[in-house]
Structure formats: C-alpha cells, structure tokens
C-alpha cells in the first residue's frame, strides 16, 4: 500500500514536471544549449588541432647578386603548416586587411632585403593583428617564433659559407690538430661559427592540463559539467519546492487526509526528481556524444559503475541542499528562484561548469571543498580522462561521507519544513 502511494506521488509529480515547459527548459534545454554553445562558439571544431594563421606578405625585395632573399622568405612562410599565406601587390591593401582583422600577421619585405641578408643585417617589417588583445598576443608569439627560427637558419647558412671561405684561405692549416679541443682547426672554427649563429639549443616540450588535451576531451569535460550544472540548480529547486508547492496548491492536506505519510511524500518526490534528472542527464550525454564529446563508459569495468553511483550521490546531495534552502523560503516562487540562482552561481564558481584553472585562488579553494565538485570530477576522471582507479578511492570516500552528512541535514530540514504546515511528521 505504501509503495503504491509513493509510486502514485512519483508518477503524478513526474507527469506534472514534464508538462511544465519551464521545468523542461531549465532541466534539459538550458544545459544542452550551453553544451552546444561551448561546442560551436567557445570551443569550435578547429580547437585542439593546429590553428591556422592568415599571413599577408608584400614582397618588395629587388634581390642581390642573383640571390632573392624575399622569395626564400615567402617560400619558408608558405611551408609552415600553421600559416596560410596571402601575397599582396600593394602595401596599402595589406595595411587595410590588417586593420580590418582579415589578417593575423602582415609581413612587408623591403627592397634591400636580399642585400641586407648577404652583407649585414636585413630589415623586415612584421605587423600583428587580432580581434582582441589575447588573440593579438598569440599572433605576435607565432610571428616572433617564426622569425626567430628564420633568423637562426640564415645565421647558420652564413656560418657555413664563412667556414668554406676559411677552409679556402687557410689551406693546409685547416687540418692542424688542436689537442686542447680534440678537433682540427677547421672543425673548431666550424663549431665556433655555428655557436655564434645558434648559441642556445632550447629543448621545448609542451605540457598541457588534461582538460586541454583535445577537443573531444574538452567537450567531454563540459558535457559532464552541464550535467553537474543542471543537477545543482534543478536538485536545489526540486528540494526547495517539494513541500511548499504541495501546500500552496492545496494538495498537502488532501494527501495527508488520504493517509499519505511525510515519508511517502519524501520518497515520491525524490523518485520523480531523480527520474527527471536521470532523463536530463541521458539527454545531455546523447547530445554530447552526437557532437563528438569524449565520454567512454564501459559497463564491464567495475570502476566505471562509480559513474552512475556518483550521479546518484550528486542528485542526493543537491536535493538535500534544496531541502535546506526550503527553510529560508515561504513561497514556491521564492524557493524556486533561490534554488536556481544558488545552483547556477555555484556551478560557475566551484569548478563544475567553469574549469578550476579559470577561477581565482579563493574560488579554487571553494571548489576544492565542495563535495559536488569531487563527485563530478570523479565522473570526469573515469569517462573523459581514463584516470587510474586507485586515484579515485580517496575522493570517492569523501563523496560518500559528504552525501551521508548532507542527506541527514536534508531530512531534518524536510521534517522541519513539513511541520510548518502539517503536524504528522
């Protein structure tokens, strides 16, 4: 009989929730909109691969003694995978395109470029553009890197030429063995010239955070974040309004008169909210998978069952926090507003929707102690980053303990809220 009542409340509540467009919007549409926004606006498909830079070149070089340094430079620019080179016949057009941000980098090769390269130092004019300071900074970095390498390559070539001149003028002297450096004179001069051209050999290795490895992983991170976000504000809202809405609509007294108990109502409401959020989570995952998010779940791997467990624990935690919020609300409107506002706010400042590395030091500290973030990060660790299971154990224990504490507080709040209206709890 009791299970029938719980089922009746759950089914009616579920039907009622899904027929309310505003609930459908906040629970399913809103997080999916964010996922799509991230996928096609903030992290467009080219992110994660090599970025292309549009480079405009105006080559005015007249050459020197049959050598065209300008053409060599244009050819070198064209060979760089990241550069999409556009040549110009007019400097004015190049400047215009730079000003209109049609170009990322502009290069003007002056008339005496070849002569400068051969006889001394060549001038070159490089302009960087960008839609914003960050973009311009990236463009400047790429331009500087290219010309740094080009400049070193020119120096190396010059060193080789001067070495050949040395051998020609030194004759047999170049073969003299210098014991102090264990090399011939020619070898020693060659090494010295190369050292002048290339004094520092920098070993540069890229180490990026897990979340920035590639686009599918970035999308996977955000898909789980979207689930966390909807769980936060919907769980808060469902918990906060669970009792108040029944009272406001006059159903609470009627249900109690029909021998419904406070725990029937609690379990019925929780089941309806849980089913709604499960459906929303599946919809978000389906959309995420469809747009190429990395979400790998293997039902044969026992550790992967931590994913549904953590989703359930997140739901219990947020619903319980919602019951706590209901203590501060007198109407379902204020309860819902408070739940959604707090949930959205927390999802942005606790590393659930916005990555922790983007947060200030203080907010990062908040994210580190927020148990919902622990659970969401555990899910991310499993389905996005294939984290070793042993790394999850400590966090998982923390999530379980936090859930138990929050559910206990939630139940106390629920009883307190229901006792405001009826005296059966």
């Amino acid at each position, binding site marked *: 009989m009791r299970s029938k*009542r719980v089922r*009746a409340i759950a089914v009616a509540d579920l*039907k*009622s929730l899904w027929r309310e467009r505003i609930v459908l919007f906040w629970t399913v549409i809103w997080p999916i909109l964010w996922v799509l926004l991230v996928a096609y606006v903030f992290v467009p498909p080219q992110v994660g691969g090599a970025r292309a830079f549009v480079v405009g070149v105006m080559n005015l070089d007249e050459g020197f003694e049959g050598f065209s340094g300008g053409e060599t430079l244009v050819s070198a620019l064209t060979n760089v995978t990241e550069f999409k080179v556009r040549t110009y016949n007019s400097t004015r057009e190049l400047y215009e395109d730079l000003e209109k941000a049609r170009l990322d980098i502009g290069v003007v090769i002056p008339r005496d470029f070849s002569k400068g390269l051969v006889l001394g130092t060549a001038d070159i004019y490089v302009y960087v553009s960008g839609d914003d300071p960050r973009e311009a900074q990236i463009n400047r970095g790429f331009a500087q890197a290219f010309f740094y390498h080009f400049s070193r390559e020119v120096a190396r070539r010059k060193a080789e030429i001067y070495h050949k001149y040395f051998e020609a003028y030194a004759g047999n002297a170049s073969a003299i063995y210098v014991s102090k450096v264990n090399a011939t004179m020619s070898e020693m001069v060659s090494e010295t010239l190369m050292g002048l051209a290339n004094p520092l050999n920098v070993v540069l290795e890229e180490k990026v955070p897990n979340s920035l490895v590639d686009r599918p992983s970035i999308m996977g991170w955000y898909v789980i974040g979207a689930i966390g976000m909807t769980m936060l504000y919907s769980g808060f809202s469902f918990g906060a309004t669970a009792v108040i809405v029944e009272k406001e609509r*006059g*159903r609470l*007294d*009627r249900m109690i008169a*029909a*021998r419904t108990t406070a725990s029937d109502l609690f379990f019925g409401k929780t089941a309806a909210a849980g089913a709604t959020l499960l459906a929303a989570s599946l919809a978000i995952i389906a959309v995420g998978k469809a747009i190429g998010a990395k979400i790998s779940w293997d039902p044969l791997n026992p550790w992967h069952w931590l994913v549904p467990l953590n989703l359930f624990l997140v739901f219990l935690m947020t619903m319980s926090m919602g019951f706590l919020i209901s203590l501060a609300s007198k109407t379902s409107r204020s309860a819902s507003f408070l739940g959604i506002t707090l949930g959205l706010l927390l999802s942005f400042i606790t590393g659930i929707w916005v990555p922790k590395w983007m947060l200030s030091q203080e907010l990062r500290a908040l994210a580190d102690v927020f148990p919902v973030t622990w659970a969401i990060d555990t899910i991310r660790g499993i389905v996005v980053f294939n984290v070793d299971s042993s790394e999850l154990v400590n966090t998982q224990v923390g999530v379980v303990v936090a859930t138990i504490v929050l559910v206990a507080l939630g139940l106390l709040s629920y009883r307190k809220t229901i006792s405001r209206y009826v005296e059966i709890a």
Partner: protein
Amino acid sequence: MRVVNVVKRFCGVEVLRGVSISIDKGTVVSLLGPNGSGKTTLIRIIVGVLKPNSGTVVFNGRLLSYLPQEHGLFEELTGLDNVLFYARLYGLSEDYAKKRAKELLDRLELLEHAKIVVAKYSGGMAKKLSFTIALLPDADLLVLDEPTTGLDPSSRQAVWDIIEDERRSGKAVLLSTHYMEEVERLSDYLYLMHRGAIVAEGTSEELKRKYAPKSVMELQLQGLLSKAVEVLRASGFEVITEGAKALKIYTDSPREAVSRMVSTLHASDVYVKSLRVVEPTLDDVFLRLTGRGLTEE
C-alpha cells in the same frame, strides 16, 4: 465521529477553545461561522492534518474522505489523471475509480472534460472535479469544506443531490459552508462557531426558535442613519445596521412595532423608504448570539 473538548493553539494564541461536536451515521452536520471562527482548523484536526493541544477526536470508521477549500489538484494533469492519482492514494483499483468517477462526473456534467488538463478548467469545473475525488472512496465520513463555493445554481443543486444520496446511503457528512440555503436544505444538525468556540448547536428550527426573534423588519431609510439608530434604540428597539442606508429591527410583535417605529422615526425627520417583514434566518440567530453576521469579514 466525536470531537471532545479540543483545544488548539498557534504561537500561544488559542484558536479552538474546548470544541466538542459529534456526527452520527446517515446525518449531515454543518459547521457555521464567519471567517476566522476556527472551522477550517477544526476540520484539519478531524482529518488528521493537525494535532490538538488537548482533547480527542474519536473516529471508529474505516475511512474518511476530505474536500478541502482549495481544489488540491495537479493543474498540469487531466481531470482523469487527478482522479486516478487520489484513487491510488486511497488504495482503490483503477477500474473501480474510473467507474465511480464516470458516474459522478456525469451527474456533475463534467464527464466530457475528464481528459482535458485541469489548468484549462474554470473554477467551478475544478471544484466539481475536487468534489468528485472526495466521493471516490467508500468513506464512512465525508468532510466537505465549502463544497459549492464558486458553483452555478444548477451545479450546486447537483452537488446537494449527491450529498443527500450519500446521507441516504448511511454516510456521515460534516459540512462547512457560508450558504444559508445549503445549511437549511442539507443539515440535520448545526454547530455555530465564533472565535474558536461552539456558541450554539441544534437543528435549524431549534436554533431559530431558541435564539431568533419572531420577525425581522428590514428598512430602507431616507435621512441620517446614525440618528435613526440612536432614536430607535432609545425607544427600546433591537436595531442592527446593514450598510449605510439600511437597518434591521428584531421584534416579537411586528404589527405593534411598525406603527411605533414609523412615528418615532418621523419625529426625528427620518423617513422610511421601504419596509419588509421577513422570517428570521440563521444569520439572525448568529447576529443575536455574537453581535456580528456570518458573512462579515
């Protein structure tokens, strides 16, 4: 069902002060009183939503059913979905609930709207659906809090007919209402409530006989009402004001009172525009007992 000496306090304020009532099988008992008299609190105690601070509620039946003032419906669900929801809470089978609901909805002319969402119902339709739900279970006691508020006359008549049928089938009905006509037609016994206490009880006739005057004169006046009230009271009339230009006079001998009243008013330059002698109602009983009308806020 018996309520014995029930006391209820909210935040230290006593809203029920030793209330006792009883309802027998096959009777309709009405609670009559203005807003704030404690009727709904008493009903909420009877249906088990509130606990009394002292006193007891004895109900030996199997089941009671409750129609609250608010409809208590899921607005996003259809009428039939609402019926089935409460049927499940009462442990009724779906077939039985559908059959019973069909019969009641048909009588209330709501059957063709059963598959429409309640949000599209008018207030009267929602009230009728709510009433149908209250009658779904085979309850021994029906507790109906203002069952006909917001209904048109023909729907009200249909509801009354159904309540009478329930009484005939041996059910006990506790009715809370503002409508005198409803009370007069349906009630076997009445409890008049004022400020959390029962101020009088009995059948309608008994109460009128015991507390009401034999006749009531209803007057429309031309002139200063306050002056008229003053002079009439000074001449020994029992005067009740009703609005800015009307008043009632309670009397046991209307024939003698009319001529004396007209001459008293005439001497004070107040003239009678119209005069009607009517039978006393329960409102008059309540006025005499408490000094205020049943419908006064």
